[in-house]
Structure formats: structure tokens, C-alpha cells
């Protein structure tokens, strides 16, 4: 007995078992219901966009790791989350070459350029989307109408060649119109029924139409303690309460709190984008301030911005401010400060 050489190990000799892999894997799982719904709702187009996005992001990260002569980091699952989130923010009919380009930018510029996992100042998926929004504003705001043959054929624009003008699909004759609820609300003053907002039969980006399912996924992560609930709560509460204030402020449009919460990318953004741990503050108070800031920016952009939706820019601005919030809001150490003169 006791023949082995003893190991000298520093305490603690126990660990909770938490891991980055488990967190990222669970975030991916939490996104799945909304993704499955998107495939049902938008058909093959959504499936293709999501698959191409995930594969592009993973391949980009792998290649960059190889270029840097270090072991690949795709095993930590964070790039899968980025890929899913990026795909979910795109219109389902987006040409696939744009998905590839944007996914590459998301991971290469948004994440790896800054040092990979843990170093990205902005949510990488949103960096990719912001790039596409700036480069291809038309394609990024073209919404297909759902058609009965969505499970058998792809929209014509999906397979368009790079930098060629995408063929216009046939005008929507059946199903619903191609405009998003926020677009209708902003330009034409039309409200979409709440049930459609939360359970999906509206137009929009791949992953933003099923607000109810996104909420469910977020609640799962909160229950597993893998998400800071303060961030989505602060954002959603700010938007809901702010809506009441904004209605008299902005002429001609009604800010219905529940409609505001359920439309556009808000639920996806609040639950899964703004909560990117790396790009959000670390303290509880910091997270609340960050959430309020993002919520307020969303309302301001929706009310006065040039575009109907502003969740992406609101979160990117929130990301930019989060180091400053972290600097201001530090935990206050236990006990009164040390006396300068000892007795």
C-alpha cells in the first residue's frame, strides 16, 4: 500500500463540474426549439441558412486556429452558438454566398481577430450581421412570403451568384405578405395580432419569429443557471415600461408593450445575444444597467431610427459600453476599508 508517489496539488481539491463546453452546448440546445420552428415556418430556406452559417463559422475558426499554429478551439462549442445565432438573424431568403461571407466575418473579425473565446468585445454573430446590413442593405431587408412548396424548393435568391443581382422571386400571391410586423407598424401603422407575434406566423429573420419559443429557451438556461437573468429582464422590462412612456411622445404610433416585446429581434436579442457573457458586464448591478441601456436604445431606434428594427445596434452599443460599466460598477469588498493608521 501507499507505494505511489504522492501528487502535490493545490487546493481546492473539488470542482463544481461547470464547464465552458456544457454552457455553450446548453445554449445551443436552448436555441433548437426556435430553429426547428423556423424550419417549419420558412422551410428549406431556413434550414439551409442555419446549416451554412454553422458550418462556415466552425470552418473559419478551425482554419484560423490552424493558421495560428494552435489547437483548434471548435470543441468548446462556442462557435456553434455563434453560427446558430448568426443564421437566426438573417432573412431566410438571403443568398448563401452572403451567409458564408458574413459568417466568415463574424468569426474572423468578430472573434478570432481579438483573440478568440473570451476576448471578443462584441457579440460575433452581430458583428457579422452588422457587416451584411451595411454591405447589402437590400438583401438584408427582403423578406420572402411563405409558400406551400417551401419544403421542396428554395427561393430563387438563395442560390444567387456572388455580386449578381438576385433574381426576383414571383410576387407573393398567397400566404402572408412579405413585410415584417415592425415594418408594417412603422411605415403603415398596422398592428399584428399578438398570437401571431409570439407563435410565429409572421415574416422576419430566421430565428426571430417565434418569440414564445425563444422565451422558453431562455427560461431553460436561466433554470440551469447558465444565463444571467438580470440582462433579459432589464431589457424586456425597460422596453415594456418604456413603451408606455413613448406612446404619447411619438405621434401617430401606438407602443403596445406586449407587441413591442414580441416583435422584431427583441426576444432573440435579449435572451441570447445581449447575454453573451464575454461582451456583457460581470457584476449584477452592471448587468442591470447594461440591460436598461439596451432596452432604451431599442425603443429610441424603433421610434426615431431610419429602420424599423434596432435591436442589433442597441446590443452592439451595449457591448461597447460594457467595459466602461465594469469599470464603474465593481463589487464593494466585505467590511469597512482598512484603517490607514493601525492602533
Amino acid at each position, binding site marked *: 500500500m501507499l507505494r505511489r508517489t*504522492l501528487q502535490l*496539488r493545490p487546493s481546492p481539491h473539488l470542482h463544481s463540474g461547470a464547464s465552458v463546453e456544457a454552457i455553450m452546448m446548453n445554449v445551443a440546445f436552448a436555441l433548437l426549439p426556435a430553429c426547428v420552428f423556423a424550419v417549419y415556418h420558412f422551410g428549406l430556406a431556413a434550414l439551409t441558412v442555419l446549416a451554412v452559417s454553422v458550418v462556415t463559422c466552425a470552418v473559419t475558426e478551425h482554419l484560423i486556429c490552424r493558421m495560428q499554429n494552435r489547437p483548434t478551439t471548435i470543441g468548446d462549442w462556442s462557435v456553434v452558438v455563434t453560427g446558430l445565432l448568426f443564421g437566426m438573424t438573417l432573412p431566410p431568403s438571403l443568398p448563401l454566398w452572403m451567409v458564408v461571407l458574413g459568417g466568415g466575418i463574424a468569426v474572423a473579425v468578430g472573434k478570432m481577430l481579438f483573440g478568440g473565446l473570451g476576448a471578443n468585445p462584441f457579440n460575433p454573430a452581430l458583428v457579422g450581421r452588422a457587416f451584411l446590413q451595411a454591405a447589402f442593405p437590400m438583401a438584408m431587408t427582403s423578406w420572402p412570403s411563405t409558400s406551400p412548396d417551401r419544403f421542396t424548393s428554395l427561393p430563387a435568391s438563395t442560390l444567387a451568384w456572388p455580386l449578381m443581382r438576385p433574381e426576383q422571386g414571383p410576387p407573393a400571391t398567397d400566404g402572408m405578405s412579405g413585410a415584417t410586423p415592425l415594418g408594417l407598424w412603422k411605415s403603415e401603422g398596422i398592428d399584428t395580432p399578438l398570437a401571431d407575434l409570439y407563435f410565429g406566423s409572421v415574416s422576419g429573420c430566421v430565428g426571430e419569429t417565434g418569440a414564445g419559443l425563444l422565451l422558453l429557451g431562455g427560461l431553460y438556461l436561466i433554470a440551469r443557471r447558465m444565463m444571467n437573468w438580470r440582462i433579459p429582464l432589464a431589457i424586456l422590462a425597460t422596453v415594456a415600461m418604456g413603451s408606455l412612456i413613448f406612446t404619447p411622445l411619438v405621434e401617430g404610433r401606438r407602443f403596445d408593450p406586449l407587441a413591442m416585446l414580441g416583435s422584431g429581434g427583441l426576444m432573440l436579442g435579449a435572451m441570447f445575444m445581449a447575454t453573451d457573457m464575454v461582451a456583457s458586464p460581470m457584476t449584477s448591478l452592471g448587468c442591470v444597467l447594461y440591460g436598461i441601456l439596451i432596452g432604451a436604445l431599442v425603443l429610441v431606434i424603433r421610434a426615431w431610427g431610419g429602420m424599423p428594427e434596432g435591436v442589433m445596434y442597441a446590443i452592439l452599443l451595449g457591448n461597447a459600453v460594457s467595459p466602461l460599466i465594469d469599470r464603474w460598477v465593481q463589487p464593494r469588498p466585505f*467590511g469597512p476599508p482598512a484603517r490607514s493608521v493601525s492602533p
Partner: protein
Amino acid sequence: MFSPKGSFRHGIHPPTGKDDTRDQPIRQFPFAPVLIVPLATMADHPARPLVVEGQRVQRGQSIAEPDGSMSVAMHAPATGVVRRIALAPTIEGKMLPAIFLEPFPASSQVITGGASCDTSASRDEVIEAIRNAGAVGLGGAAFPTHVKLAAARQRPVDVIMINGAECEPYLTTDHRVMLEHAADVVLGIRYLLKASGAEQAVVAIESDKTDAAHAIRSAIGDEASIRVQTLEVKYPQGAEKILIAAVLGRHVPSRGLPIDVGTLCFNVASAAEIGRCLATGSGLVDRVITVGGPPVRKKGNYRVPLGTPLRFLLETVGTDDDVEVVFLGGPMMGQSVSSLDIPIGKGTTGVIALGPSETAGIDRQRRHPCIRCGDCLNACPMFLNPSHLARLAEGGQYQAMAERHHLMDCFECGCCSYVCPSHLPLVQQFRIAKAALRR
């Protein structure tokens, strides 16, 4: 005056691992062929030996007298003969002087006593008796009890804390001592009340030890100056500053001591030994420890003679062949040992062994960069920012860590490393930083 809350913010809930030993009664441990009695419980303050090589000693007889204000007396843990006085290994890796004692085969467990000290003695007499009994903090730090009490001579103390939280996983010694020696604990508290000049004593016990709390309450009877406070089961509930805040609602200042808020903290085992020793006039010759961990066969709580080498201890209880790590104390703060020739000291609360499946569980975990999840901030009981401290530590900015980010408030509980999903060595780096700054 009190704002009893019985808990604290942040902290963690590790698996307690106490089920194997909490119901094991304390058993007397046999004498090793050679006992190694260190002259110092704290490295820099050795006692002066009173014996010479070849001299015969009785169990309980004083074999070293205090030398300097920080040192305490040492007593022979067994009846036998002093083989030599030489350097012996310590857990820190230093070699320090120790008395090597060879017990006679027939050495009895009876402890030779001396003049007892009853509670009617004067305050200074009690403090001196505590020092001559060789009493130090048995909770792990082994800080001399009389030094704390002497401080209370200069500054007022109105309430003393008797720490029975035992928040470290695996350890059940305090639990068993309270359960089996409640009368000694209460007697010890009476001596400590006298010596500290405090009016009240609070025995703080985590709520998973209701039987111990009940035993202490019965031993107290209707004595108004002592009360029991139960606490939430949470780590590190038993840390001095945390305990005082949880029970008294007083916050010890940064880098301060409990006496800054009018209190002193003593471990329940210290109280029990003080009660035992002062009543009989004997000295501290053994202590109760938990021997456990998955590879240990006869897990349990043992009253072990001081100076028992770890090798004899582990061979006597029996272990699997593939012990990988042995550490003294609990798994959250316990130090692992490099040599089994290290003896059980006054500050040893437990001896825990881990096998390959436990170490592999930790080694298998892949390290990642910090993902800024904030879990360490929400675990740190001192409200530090371990993530930021670690970033500074990697750059070697130890000064900045101490001056601007309160590094010295870290008492190394290990909660940050326990929760970190990136498996970063957080508290480990802080320990290095603190050691570098002290030099």
C-alpha cells in the same frame, strides 16, 4: 444589538461528503512506533525543550516550555523515551526542530495531570494555564489561544464566538466533539469567557448538525451567558469574518481582526480541549481528526496522539494501493503533503486521501480563457473580483492587485476556483501573488 441572520451572501454549496464519517464515534488511535512532536505550532516560534535525548517521559508531561510570547508549551503524547531532538519535515517543506519520542509498548492512555485551574481563578491565571496547556486554535490555523486572549486585555471584547460551523466538506471532527464532549466544550467556554472578559458566548453551528446543537444546548442548561446559533449550510460559513457577520452582524474591517469589532473567535475543538486540560491540569497530547476520502478503508473520527506520522496513520486505517493525493484539512483549503513522514499537529483537522478517479475528474477538465461569466464574483464571500485579479496576476501585476483590488482581503477559501467553468487556477494564483508580496 444582534442582528442574527445565520447566513451570508455569495459562497457555494459543495457536496458535503460527510455521510461516511458523521455517525462514526470518536475512537482512540494507537501509538505509532515513533512520535514526532514539533517544537513549534507556528514555524517561527518554537518552544524550548525541557528534556534531553534518552530521557524517559510520562504521557501528558511537559516536554517543552514556551519561549517568547507567541509560543506555547508542548507535552509528551505518550509514555516513552526521547530518542533524539532533530529536524523533522513539515507540510510547508521546511525542516523544523522536533522531539522524536519512542512510546513504550505498554504505554497507557492515561494522561498525567497537574494542578487544575478552576473557573474561580483570576483572569491572568486562566490565560497562563491555557498557555501552559499548549492550547492553540484547533480549527486549522494553530494560532496560540493565549495571544488572542492577551489582546483582549488591552481592548474590550463583549462577546466571543465559538465556531462549530465546520463548513469544509468531509470533516466531521467538530461535529463529533460537540456531540460526544458537549460538557467539555461548555466548560472550555466558561474558561474562555473568564479569560476574555466577555459577557456572552455564541456557539455557531451549521444546521446539518442539529444533534450537536441539541447536545450543546443541553450542556448549557439555563446558563444565560452562552447561547447556540444555527447557521445555513454553506461554504465558507465557518470563516472567521463571515461567521461574525452572520451571527453578530458586525463586519471586521479589511485586513482587521475580530477584536476590531469587539469579539474573538475560537474553534469548538479548542474550547473542548481547554475545558478538558484546565480541569485536569494536563496538556494537549492528542486531538480529534477525521480520516476519510474514497481510498480510505476504515474512515472515521479518531483521537490521534500528536506527532503520529501520516504513514502510520494511513497504514493503520488501511487504504487502497492507488492513493494519489493526501491532504491535511478539508478539500477546499487543505494542503496536500509531499511526504508521509509529516506528523499530525495541533492544527490538523483531518487527513483526506484521494484516488485516481477523483484526481482524474479534475485533470480531465480542459482549461479555457475566462469567458467573463461572473460566477466567481457571485461566489466570492469577500466580494472581490477574482476574474479581474486573475488577469492582473497573469501579467504579474501583484502590486496593483493588492493596492487597487483588495487582494489581501482574500482568505483563499477557493470558491472562485470551485465554480470557474474555464477551470482557471484563480485562488492558486492569488496565493502566489500574496506570497510574493509578503516577501
